């Protein structure tokens, strides 16, 4: 039997770099059982691998440690538990940093659980030897074409290892790569005793997790009719009020800014969506066309009737690899004739590079005139023909670092050797930086063991 008939789960972080005010206000300004925090984008894993290679105690989301330092006393006082994928590629270093914070606050009996098994970078050759091909899901290419350039490889784990970690009584659960909705589904499995066969319930928890995974994007952030949203500065981050039957209400703390209504929630449901009838996670295939969505009060939206189908027998893997070099820089070009002058500047740069023996094919160049309708290219927009000023944004990419770096040297000279009114070069000369490519693939679930370990300051 479920121990509770209602569980409150909030998400306070949509990505690494999201506002610290979101989670701080969630734990301080109203009731809560669980706080989830999502720090990982695809590119983050590769960056973290590089950080760890340089310093063995790095490679996790350091923002998380700062946040816990600020909210730990409140978490303990109000009995709120935290689930965060802040572990990145080094969850134990993250755990050690959190244990130091616990010690600093002089709090006893705070348990930290670590979920592992997602990082398969060191196991790639073994897995290949066992017959795993890691074919690119988009192109069908074999991994061999990039194998020697792979910089990270992480499995998207599901919600059950998180539920297992919560069973240990841990106050804080740290994971590496997992699905974003799993951060919310994990505590629901734990609280309500949902099993692997409860497909509709797992699908409902997945929908709930998807709604809150980007933080304030379901409470009025990034919303079409933004003028209608009250007090964006004090926007409340989302809370799921979940029931054991799988139905749930999306809401936010009373007195916070933002807006929760069917359309703000649907904005997020449609985000990063492929086929809505078949949203695949390691736990379930959720049908986003199945549920009913209704307003049940001010800033309260209820979702019920979600259906799910059995999960597949594979995990998704995200591999990253070195994919060449890029450099992008910008200058501001004032009027009169801002756009015409910016066009001339672009032509001058490519011609000077050609004179020096450096050719850049069209598909490796970027030319943007920001202020003259770059974002909506090709769509008529009033005023785009003669803007008062333009930001000229030029870029180049390719396999050769020297070639890309040479491009970066020809931008700033325009200030003195191009048309008049070229300024805004404070960023200096753009440097060549690495392009990280992504390789989506699948791996058999039965070859990926997961592990949960528990730690405390008393150990």
């Amino acid at each position: 039997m479920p121990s509770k008939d209602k569980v409150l789960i909030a998400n306070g972080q949509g990505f690494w770099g999201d506002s610290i005010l979101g989670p701080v206000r969630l734990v301080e300004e109203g009731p809560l059982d669980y706080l989830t925090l999502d720090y990982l984008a695809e590119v983050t894993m590769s960056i973290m691998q590089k950080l760890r290679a340089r310093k063995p105690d790095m490679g996790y989301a350091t923002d998380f440690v700062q946040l816990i330092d600020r909210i730990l006393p409140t978490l303990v006082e109000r009995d709120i538990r935290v689930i965060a994928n802040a572990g990145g590629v080094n969850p134990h270093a993250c755990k050690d940093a959190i244990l130091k914070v616990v010690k600093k606050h002089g709090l006893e009996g705070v348990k930290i659980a670590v979920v592992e098994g997602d990082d398969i970078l060191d196991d790639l050759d073994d897995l290949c030897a066992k017959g795993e091909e890691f074919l690119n899901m988009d192109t069908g290419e074999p991994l061999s074409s990039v194998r020697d350039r792979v910089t990270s490889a992480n499995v998207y784990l599901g919600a059950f290892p998180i539920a297992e970690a919560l069973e240990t009584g841990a106050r804080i659960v740290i994971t590496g790569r997992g699905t974003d909705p799993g951060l919310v589904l994990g505590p629901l499995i734990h609280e309500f005793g949902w099993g692997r066969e409860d497909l509709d319930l797992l699908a409902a928890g997945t929908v709930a997790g998807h709604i809150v995974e980007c933080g304030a994007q379901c409470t009025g952030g990034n919303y079409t009719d933004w003028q209608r949203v009250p007090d964006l500065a004090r926007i409340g981050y989302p809370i799921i009020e979940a029931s054991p039957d799988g139905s749930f209400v999306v809401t936010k703390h009373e007195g916070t800014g933002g807006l929760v209504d069917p359309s703000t929630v649907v904005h997020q449901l449609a985000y990063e969506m492929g086929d809505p009838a078949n949203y695949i996670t390691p736990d379930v295939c959720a049908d986003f066309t199945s549920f009913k969505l209704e307003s049940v009060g001010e800033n309260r939206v209820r979702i019920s009737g979600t259906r799910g189908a059995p999960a597949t027998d594979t995990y998704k893997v995200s591999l990253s690899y070195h994919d060449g070099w890029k450099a992008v820089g910008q200058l501001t070009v004032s009027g009169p004739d801002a756009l015409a002058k910016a066009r001339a500047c672009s032509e001058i740069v490519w011609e000077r590079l050609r004179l020096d023996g450096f050719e850049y094919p069209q598909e490796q160049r970027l030319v943007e005139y920001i202020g003259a309708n770059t974002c909506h290219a090709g769509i008529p927009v009033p005023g785009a023909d003669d803007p008062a000023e333009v930001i000229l944004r030029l870029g180049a990419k390719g396999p050769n670092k020297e070639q890309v770096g040479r491009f970066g040297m020809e931008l700033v000279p325009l200030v003195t050797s191009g048309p008049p009114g070229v300024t805004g070069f404070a960023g200096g000369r753009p440097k060549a930086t690495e392009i990280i490519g992504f390789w989506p693939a699948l791996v058999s679930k039965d070859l990926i063991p997961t592990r949960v370990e528990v730690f405390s300051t008393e150990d």
Partner: protein
Amino acid sequence: MPRVKLARIAQARSGDKGEGSNIGVIGRSEAAYAFLKEHLTEEVVQRHTERINAGGVKRYSADNMRVLNFLLEDSLGGGGSASLRTDAQGKTHGLALLRLVLEVPQAVLDATPDDSRDGSGELLETVAVDDEE
């Protein structure tokens, strides 16, 4: 028939999806959604976004949310960190689509409250068909 921007009868959000982007278009009313399901086709979206998207367009629908979901298959100038574009994640593609001008029956407009507050939903009586071609 009245000519309006898509923003008058729909909302939208977009984001990255591999080397492309997805645009979720949300009908502002049942009548608007039914109209869009018939008229906002893959071909219409493909034509409107041809300078943004180098690939195909695929459409899915979710009637329970009044959502048409469009996948623009090659709209970021390379995926992940390979894109040089300022909008490398397709965050603005939804608003680009909301600029689409459509001929919408008066009955659909009457059944669809104008909830936009930025004037984007106003009736475009002065726009002639030829200007858009």
